[in-house]
C-alpha cells in the first residue's frame, strides 16, 4: 500500500535512509539540514531496523566514521550543509581514493565561508569538480522536490555500491525545509552479515578467511607506477558511469526555440517561468539535469544544433553555466541569470532575464 505523508525534504531523506536499509548515519547538526539528524533521533531506527544513528563530535569525525563503516561493506551516510561539507573534503577524497561506497547529503546554504542559512546552489563546483584533492568524481544527484529527496537517497546508495564510489545528494535549503506530499517506498531489509560478505566480501574488511588474501582498504600507495594505474582504473570507472548513469528531465523542449537549463529549486522556479513564457507566446522549454555528475553532456551538445539560445538559471554567481558553455562550444548564445547569498529568484525575474537576452 502506498504511504502518503506531508514531509520536509530533510525528513524525507532521513526516512529514506532508514527505509533503504542503511546500517549507520553519522552526522553533526547545521542549519538548514538539522532535521535529518533530528528526525532520525526521534524515529529511533535502531529499534526499527537496527540502524545506528550517532551525533559525532564534528563533521571531520562524521566523514571518517563513514570511512570506517564503508570499509566493512556497510551502508552508511552522513548529511551536512555547505560549511560542514567543506570540512569533510579530506575524508571524501580518501573515500574516493579507497573506492568506498557511501552517501553524503549536502543541503546547500549561502556562502562563501559561514555565509548564511538561506538556500543556495553555490556548491556545484565543489560537488562536481572534486572539492577534495586528487583526480576523482562523486556521483552527484540533485532532487528538486520532497519526493525526489526520498527517492534519490535510495538511488545514490544503488549507484555508490554498483561502482564503489561515494555519492552525493545535492539538495538546498529550500527543498530541505519545504513540505510536500511524498509517497514513501517500502522498507527494505538491512542486509545480514552473510549478505554483506556475499556482496562486498571481495574487497571489504569483513574478516579474513583462509581461502583469500587480506582485503586492504587504503588511499595511500607510495609507488607512482601503481598509483597511476589505480588512477587509470578510477578513470575507466568514471567513464562507465558517464556512459550509463546520466539522468535529466525535459519539459516542453520538443518545439522550443529556447531552453532554460536549471536544476533543484532553480528548476522548479524556472518551470513556472516556462509556463508564463508560453502564455506570452514564447517557445521556451526547461531542461533539468538530475545527475550533475555525470553531467548530461550529449543532450546539451544537441541543443547547439537544434535551439537558438540557452538561459542557465542558478542560485549562484554562475557555476553550472560553465559546463553548459563547454558542451555548447560556442554554437549558440548561452546566457546566465543567478541570485546568490541565499536569495531565491522569482519566476518573473527569470522571465525578465530571458526577455532581456533573447526577445
Amino acid at each position, binding site marked *: 500500500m502506498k504511504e*502518503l505523508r*506531508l514531509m520536509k525534504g530533510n525528513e524525507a531523506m532521513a526516512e529514506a535512509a532508514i527505509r533503504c536499509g542503511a546500517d549507520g548515519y553519522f552526522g553533526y547538526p547545521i542549519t*538548514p539540514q538539522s532535521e535529518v539528524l533530528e528526525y532520525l533521533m526521534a524515529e529511533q531506527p535502531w529499534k526499527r531496523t537496527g540502524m545506528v544513528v550517532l551525533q559525532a563530535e564534528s563533521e571531520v569525525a562524521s566523514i571518517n566514521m563513514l570511512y570506517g563503516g564503508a570499509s566493512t561493506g556497510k551502508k552508511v551516510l552522513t548529511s551536512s550543509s555547505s560549511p560542514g561539507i567543506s570540512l569533510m573534503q579530506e575524508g571524501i577524497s580518501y573515500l574516493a581514493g579507497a573506492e568506498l561506497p557511501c552517501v553524503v547529503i549536502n543541503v546547500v546554504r549561502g556562502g562563501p565561508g559561514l555565509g*548564511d*542559512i*538561506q538556500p543556495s546552489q553555490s556548491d556545484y563546483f565543489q560537488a562536481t569538480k572534486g572539492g577534495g584533492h586528487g583526480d576523482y568524481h562523486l556521483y552527484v544527484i540533485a532532487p528538486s522536490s520532497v519526493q525526489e529527496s526520498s527517492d534519490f537517497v535510495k538511488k545514490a546508495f544503488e549507484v555508490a555500491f554498483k561502482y564503489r564510489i561515494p555519492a552525493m545528494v545535492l539538495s538546498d*535549503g*529550500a527543498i530541505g*525545509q*519545504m*513540505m*510536500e*506530499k511524498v509517497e514513501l517506498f517500502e522498507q527494505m531489509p538491512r542486509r545480514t552479515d552473510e549478505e554483506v560478505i556475499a556482496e562486498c566480501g571481495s574487497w571489504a574488511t569483513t574478516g579474513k578467511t583462509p581461502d583469500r588474501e587480506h582485503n586492504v582498504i587504503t588511499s595511500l600507495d607510495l609507488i607512482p607506477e601503481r598509483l597511476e594505474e589505480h588512477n587509470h582504473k578510477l578513470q575507466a570507472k568514471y567513464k562507465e558511469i558517464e556512459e550509463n548513469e546520466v539522468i535529466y528531465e525535459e519539459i516542453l523542449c520538443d518545439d522550443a526555440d529556447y531552453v532554460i537549463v536549471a536544476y533543484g*529549486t532553480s528548476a*522548479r*522556479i*524556472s*518551470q*513556472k*517561468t516556462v*509556463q508564463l513564457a508560453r502564455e506570452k507566446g514564447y517557445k521556451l522549454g526547461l531542461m533539468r539535469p538530475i545527475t550533475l555528475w555525470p553531467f548530461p553532456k550529449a543532450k546539451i551538445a544537441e541543443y547547439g544544433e537544434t535551439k537558438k539560445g540557452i538561459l542557465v538559471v542558478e542560485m549562484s554567481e554562475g557555476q553550472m553555466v560553465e559546463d553548459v558553455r563547454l558542451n555548447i562550444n560556442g554554437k549558440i548564445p548561452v546566457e546566465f541569470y543567478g541570485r546568490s547569498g541565499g536569495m*531565491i529568484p*522569482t*519566476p*518573473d*525575474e527569470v522571465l525578465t532575464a530571458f526577455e532581456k537576452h533573447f526577445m
Partner: protein
Amino acid sequence: MTEEIIIAGFGGQGVLSMGKILAYSGIMQDQEVSWMPAYGPEMRGGTANVTVIISDDRINSPVLNSYDTAIILNQQSMDKFEKTVKPGGLLLYDPNGISKHPSRKDINIYQIEGAAEAARLKSGKTFNMVVLGAFLKLKPIVEFDNVIKGLKKSLPERYHHLIPMNETAIKSGMKIVKEIQKL
C-alpha cells in the same frame, strides 16, 4: 484548481502550523500541495511567513511573487504583502495591531477579528484556527471534514483531545468574518 496563498504574521501566532493544516487538508482530498516557509532567523516575536500552494496539478515553483490570497496578521506583513495580491484576489487580515489598513481598490478585502475571538473563546492559541475558518468561509477550497482530518494528521496524538476546541474556533471564524470590500 490552483490556489496560491501567503500567510504572514509574527512568529508564535501559528502561521506555519495554519499552513501545515491547510496543506494536510489538501492531501486528504488527493491534491498536490507545497508548504514553503521563510525559515531564516525568524522566531517568536519576529516575522514569519509561509507560502502554501494547493493544486489539482503538479506544482512548479514553490516560491512566488504574487498570490491569490494573502492572510495578513501584522503591520509589517501588510506593508510587505498587500501589493503582492493578484488583481481580483483576496486579502484577509486581522485588524488587531494594524495601523495602516489596506487601500487597494482592485482586490477583495475581508477582516477577521481573530485575536479578539480567540480571547472570547478563552483559548488564545486557537487564534490561527479562527483565521483559518474565515479563509475557508471565503474560499472553500478544502472540505471541512478534510480540514479536521488534516488537523488530526498534523497534531501529535497527545494533543488530539484539543481537536474539538479547534473545530469550534474554525466554525466561529467562519461566522464572524467581515466584508470590507467586495469586487
